[in-house]
């Protein structure tokens, strides 16, 4: 018999602490679907997704039943559309988006990612068309998610692309104004985009990936929070080193579950298992919050002094536990701080404890960036571009992924609340600081940092 305490601890993870596999994402290469004939192209896309993803949900449920582990979401990530849909015009790209949307629906998944372009060093004509088509492609479909990589540590920051994406973002917000600009929740602007991230909205099937692959995103903020609480309740004066150790061990357990589920599902589908992304991904549910973990560590008001250090401890401990658990750790892997999707973070923003500037500092040491942050609907494109550029600078200079999922909420200003519902939650509109627009208008590309010259 195994150690009783191990058994009970694992049991608690599922019974009381919201541990689950947050997403199983099937990556599909669509390069062979390129065709100058739009109808033929769409037909190939439909057929290939049906062929490779048709059994994803059925087999996923079988694995979930076998192990008694909930799999919350099933998703598909495809090769960036700009790579294989070159030559098609605006309407053609929108039709491709609709085809992806329908293919996702037919496969029983809630989101399909990859309406994307990688433009960190410059844009092709296909990239420009895709960025221009984002408002219609994402605004008029239910399941299609997109992303644009505008910066990298090797290439620098493409400021022209950032401004173009910002304009599309504002148009996307206007197009989905009735839903508080929800369309923008499906668009991520990246620096150093990963090729294997299973989490939406920024998931894509990147270069160097196999024909088809299963990537898994585990979660477990509730598990980590309870582990910290138990340690503090049962240990006299635990210090931060002990807390980090506890989080590390907990991350090990969570990651192992992800790898088990991913390996089993990949085997059933007859495709390779790719990576397990061990990001702590919160939901608006109480007990499933990254903010609550920080509170359990003594940061009462998220955004207060010490928040960045606490998040750094958390992110690093999660990575260490995950790295020992699995040799297949990838994606973003760290802690997500999506404001609207994390009730405690949203409350901190509403109370004025958490400002965009503090969030920006926190993104320098966690796994993503300004995520699900609501800003005033009348924010200028240049101001929006400045926020994105700042976030990119953090990623580029620190050789890490950063991203922006900003939602300019039409008709709403600071203090008003945007409501998205479900896992997307709700959040107050946060004020932004204008005044740097002249810098943005200079355009061009901020050169790669000196440490890009590594060869």
């Amino acid at each position, binding site marked *: *018999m*195994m*150690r*009783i305490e*191990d*058994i*009970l*601890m*694992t*049991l608690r*993870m*599922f*019974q009381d602490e919201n541990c689950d596999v947050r997403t199983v994402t099937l990556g599909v290469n669509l390069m062979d679907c390129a065709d100058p004939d739009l109808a033929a192209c769409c037909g190939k896309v439909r057929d290939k997704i049906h062929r490779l993803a048709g059994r994803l949900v059925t087999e996923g449920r079988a694995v979930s039943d*076998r*192990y*008694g*582990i909930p799999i919350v979401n099933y998703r598909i990530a495809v090769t960036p559309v700009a790579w294989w849909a070159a030559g098609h015009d605006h309407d053609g790209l929108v039709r491709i988006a609709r085809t992806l949307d329908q293919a996702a629906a037919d496969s029983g998944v809630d989101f399909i990612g990859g309406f994307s372009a990688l433009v960190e060093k410059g844009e092709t004509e296909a990239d420009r068309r895709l960025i221009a088509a984002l408002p219609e492609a994402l605004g008029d479909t239910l399941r299609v998610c997109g992303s644009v990589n505008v910066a990298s540590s090797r290439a620098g920051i493409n400021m022209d692309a950032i401004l173009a994406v910002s304009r599309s973002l504002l148009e996307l917000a206007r197009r989905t104004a009735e839903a508080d600009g929800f369309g923008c929740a499906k668009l991520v602007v990246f620096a150093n985009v990963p090729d294997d991230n299973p989490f939406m909205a920024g998931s894509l099937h990147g270069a160097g990936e196999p024909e088809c692959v299963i990537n898994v995103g585990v979660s477990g903020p509730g598990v980590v929070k309870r582990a910290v609480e138990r340690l503090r309740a049962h240990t006299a004066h635990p210090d931060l080193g002990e807390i980090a150790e506890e989080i590390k061990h907990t991350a*090990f*357990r969570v990651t*192992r*579950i992800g*790898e*088990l589920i991913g*390996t*089993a599902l990949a*085997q059933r589908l007859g495709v390779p298992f790719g990576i397990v992304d061990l990001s702590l991904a919160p939901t608006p549910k109480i007990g499933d919050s990254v903010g609550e973990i920080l509170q359990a560590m003594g940061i009462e008001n998220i955004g207060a002094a010490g928040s960045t250090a606490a998040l750094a401890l958390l992110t690093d401990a999660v990575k260490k536990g995950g790295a*020992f658990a*699995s*040799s297949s750790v990838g994606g973003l892997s760290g802690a997500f701080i999506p404001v609207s999707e994390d009730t405690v973070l949203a409350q901190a923003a509403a109370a004025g404890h958490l400002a965009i500037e503090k969030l920006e500092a926190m993104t320098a040491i966690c796994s993503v960036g300004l995520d699900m942050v609501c800003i005033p609907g009348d924010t200028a494109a240049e101001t929006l571009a400045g926020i994105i550029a700042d976030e990119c600078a953090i990623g580029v200079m620190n050789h890490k992924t950063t991203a922006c999922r900003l939602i300019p909420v039409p008709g709403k200003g600071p203090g008003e609340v945007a409501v998205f519902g479900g896992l997307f939650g709700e959040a107050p509109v946060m004020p932004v600081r204008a005044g740097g627009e002249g810098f943005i208008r200079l355009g061009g590309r901020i050169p790669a940092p000196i440490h890009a010259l590594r060869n």
Partner: protein
Amino acid sequence: MKTEAFVLAVTARDRPGIIAAITEAVFALGGNVTELSQTVMGGYFTLILRADLPAGLDPARIKQAVEQARPELGLAVHVRRYRPEPLFQPAEGAQVHFLTVQGPDRPGLIAAVTRFLAGHDVNIEDLYTRSEAGNITMIFQVHPRNAAALEGLRTGLPALAERLGVDLHLLHRDILRTTSEVGAIRRLVQP
């Protein structure tokens, strides 16, 4: 020398020297221990072992030899001839699970759960129970005979939990192995 296998079960009040006394007695009979499991609970020692002994030995003689080896230990020994053919043979692919039971303790609880398991053709391979402050925790390592037995177990658990007023959870063994052991998952389990 021709040998045959015997199974010995021994209980006693726990103290140092019990296993030494038992195994010395087996050795003195010309035997060799091939498998042994031992535990202590509430100050009481219990052991089960399998040993190859000279063929034709009377079990009563083995019992006497072990019990009288160190009379002051007060060993109670039960001996029977080992029969290798299992009486319970799960189907290939039948998965080992852990069943946990947690709730207020009361007489008859273990009997009710184990009768339920027996009724669904589920074998208990290991069992741990602990009762503290009026609450009981039971952890069963169970092996259903086949997929139908597992399904019956799964579907019957909610009603059993309600009837007994306890929380019941079924966990696949692979989940516990992957979260508790450090080896590579592909070596630990067969997904």
